[in-house]
């Protein structure tokens, strides 16, 4: 809970910390979080399910977040998205059957002049073309 000086409104920082630790937020944790913060289970469930970032199942070993927003579309993002789905053999928003890679949409990484962009295991990658996509696919196959 580093960085939270003020004791109020700590649910999001706590959920981030849990996800950083375990990779996802297990439904079994929800009653404990609720009790610790004196909230109802429904409140905590509501927050976990509202935000796109919070996972209720583990992600793949590698996570590729591919930008789908307008600026990346203007730079060929749609074609790269189709190629990524084909190359990785996994649909957008899902994890491969072998648990190796999760492919997710993201709406803007703030790299809008150098798209198409992705965040690969937290590392930003710009100007994705066929060759760079091949390298990314090889990287996550390892």
């Amino acid at each position, binding site marked *: 809970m580093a960085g939270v000086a003020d004791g109020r*409104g700590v649910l999001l*920082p706590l959920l981030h910390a849990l996800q950083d630790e375990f990779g996802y937020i297990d439904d079994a944790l929800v009653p404990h979080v609720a009790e610790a913060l004196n909230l109802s289970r429904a409140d905590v469930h509501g927050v976990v399910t509202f935000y796109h*970032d919070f996972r209720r199942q583990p992600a793949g070993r590698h996570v590729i977040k591919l930008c789908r927003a307008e*600026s990346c579309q*203007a*730079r060929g993002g749609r074609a790269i998205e189709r190629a990524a789905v084909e190359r990785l053999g996994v649909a957008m928003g899902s994890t491969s059957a072998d648990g190796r890679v999760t492919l997710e949409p993201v*709406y803007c990484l703030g790299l809008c002049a*150098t798209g198409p962009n992705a*965040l690969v295991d937290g590392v*930003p990658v710009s100007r994705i073309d066929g060759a760079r996509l091949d390298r990314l696919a090889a990287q996550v196959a390892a």
Partner: protein
Amino acid sequence: MASVALGADDVAEAFARTGAEVIRTGSHGLFRIEPLAEVDTADGRIAYGPVAPDEVGAVLDGSHANRLGRLADLPFFASQQRFTFARCGVIDPLDLDDYAAHGGWVGLAAARALSPAAVVATVKDSGLRGRGGAGFPTGIKWQTVLDTQAAEKFIVCNADEGDSGTFADRMLMEGDPYCLIEGMAIAAHAVGAAHGYVYIRSEYPFAVATMREAIVRSAARIAPFTLEVRVGAGAYVCGEETALLDSIEGKRGQVRAKPPLPAIAGLFGKPTVINNVLSLAAVPFILANGPAAYAAVGFGRSRGTMPIQLAGNVRNGGLYEVGFGITLGELVDEIGGGTESGRPVRAVQVGGPLGAYFPPSMFHLPFDYESFTTAGGLIGHAGITVFDDSVDMAKMARFAMEFCAVESCGKCTPCRIGSTRGVETVDRIIAGDRIDDNIEILRDLCDTMKFGSLCALGGFTPYPVLSALDHFPEDFGGATALPVAAE
């Protein structure tokens, strides 16, 4: 983050291996030349870019082909008025001495020598309006918080920069974090707040890390004011100020009905200044140089400078800070250099996913709040996304509705249901199903969303949809359907 995404880490490592002293700065804001390296010489800082890791030797001996000379001499930089971004790319972002040596903390010292009311008056006199999109006068917002009696008040910085085509907040937080911190400390003095929050979207991990470290290092400078970072969790709607407040409170990021205004009952029910990064970061300049120096630049009722972001399919993509009043065409064709693909510009979207699409026939528009409102659009956070002639505007209209459906907080029906119906209706138009009837339904739906939604997400999604319909009707089946019917 942009230069790192283009390989700057490897270049920095290659320089370090040569024994050179390497200082990592933020970006100057011209991404065509990233990764960029500048070498300190007797003639000033000489820039080279883009630079690959195996080319660092050529940079050090001055033989590299991409020698740009002094950046300030390049037309892209020489024609700017950098009030807010003066230090970005120049200083070591976390070095307090470097910040002070480049004019840092002068504004805060000036503010603390004044009464709170005098600081608010200074901001009012500068003409500063909210740079996050709505353009509300910043000084009036601060006045309301100052005038509201309460035991506790807050300063909240909205750093949930979710609009596609915008990256100025990210660049400033990564490249000159103390500028934002100084602006927040000035706001705190002006209204009597003791604590503040910077709410940063999770998609900006580097900005989060830089701001956290900068807050630790500058704590003594801004005391007794204290600050902390809160991180979003991938919800676009949390860029709306009341949804953002709910998110900091640990709730679902749902929009609140106004009134009450956040200035009267905001975070935890207390009077709250909530401003965008660029609004707060403009304040140190205003206090250091006086309101007249800021107000002297601009156009009409839009005073001062705007950090404009050129994005999408554009040759000179990047950040361009200039006074209001420059035309859209100057920005896209001259500063931006047209498309990167070399094909003709067909459409530019101004103001993010909720902004209108404009054709080149409207490039005479001056860049200011009123002109864009009159033209059926908005400047928003000043992102300009350029598309070449391969764009299908019906698909972009569909995307606008789809984005609204994905990101709707769900609180109001026009936004939640209307956006899903919107996707279905555009799909029917694209499929050629009763095109005229469905266009009428789509326009009616946009009308309902515009006037019935609680916030800008549902309320402004009609801008991209209707502007696509109005300016690019040929993409909605009409033009091609007619000749077929005539056969």
